[in-house]
């Protein structure tokens, strides 16, 4: 069975490295990008099973990236992360049909379980 391919998008190197190391250790295939524009480049070049993105990033933020993903890759689940949760962004996330809205700091094991469940719902795992 192919490894699930996850695209992690976050402007903070520390978070990207943490998620890369942990998820790679779980046997997943991880790509990283520091903003929405880089993420879209990766999506255009290879198959991705799930996008995990921060909301607040310079350049193209996570909400804009989500809109692009829903427009161009409608079957692809998106999970949003944020250290600045608000009712407004959560409602916007609900309307954009994201798979989940995760508040930082997160428990990495819990995040792994969440993503695994979303991959199973998509028939990937």
């Amino acid at each position, binding site marked *: 069975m192919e490894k699930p391919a996850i695209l992690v998008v976050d402007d903070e190197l520390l978070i990207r490295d943490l998620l890369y190391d942990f998820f790679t250790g779980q046997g997943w295939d991880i790509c990283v990008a520091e903003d929405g524009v880089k993420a879209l480049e990766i999506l255009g070049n290879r198959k991705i099973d799930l996008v995990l993105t921060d909301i607040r990033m310079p350049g193209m933020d996570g909400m804009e990236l989500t809109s692009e993903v829903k427009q161009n890759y*409608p079957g692809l*689940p998106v999970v949003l992360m944020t250290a600045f949760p608000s*009712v407004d962004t*959560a*409602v916007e996330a*609900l309307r954009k049909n994201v798979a989940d*809205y995760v508040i930082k700091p997160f428990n990495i094991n819990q995040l792994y379980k969440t993503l695994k469940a979303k991959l199973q*719902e998509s028939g990937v795992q």
Partner: protein
Amino acid sequence: MTFANEASCRRLLIAEDDIAIANQLAEYFKEFGYQVDLAVGGLKTLTKANSADYGVMLADYKMLGQTGLDVFKSLSITAPDMSVVLMTGYPSLDLVIDALRLGVCDIIVKPFSLGDIDRTIGNAFHHHWAALAYREMARKLNLENKIPPLRPTSAKCGTNAWSALYENSKGSVLPEEEPVR
């Protein structure tokens, strides 16, 4: 497609304990050709919602007996194609995240304009029609038991469930439609 003839296509249930607001909304939507029923209290709403085919339920979050979200959880089992829109005057982050995870179609914050509620309910009916179309297509391909249920979250963008239907339908042939007379 036969779903256009479904009774639920323009049938709206408004669940709101404030009778004045409920009546006002009902009158407004009747003007647009919707068939509208009212329900008061969480438990009565659940009974009413299960008693007929509604395409959309507009439910207040805070109701006597059960919250709008509790009612939605029950209905997601008995009426999975119904789109549910929650109304609340006091939106909290926890409520919105719970609603997102459970697959509520939309949340609208009171007070809202008639234009806002009109757009929201219009979108919710589109999601319901997508769910009916999905079920109809699955039935025609004899795939009803082989595909995931179309949860509201997937109905919204026609996403994962539609992808599964597509994958499962490879090699299948749609039966010929009866000619319209």
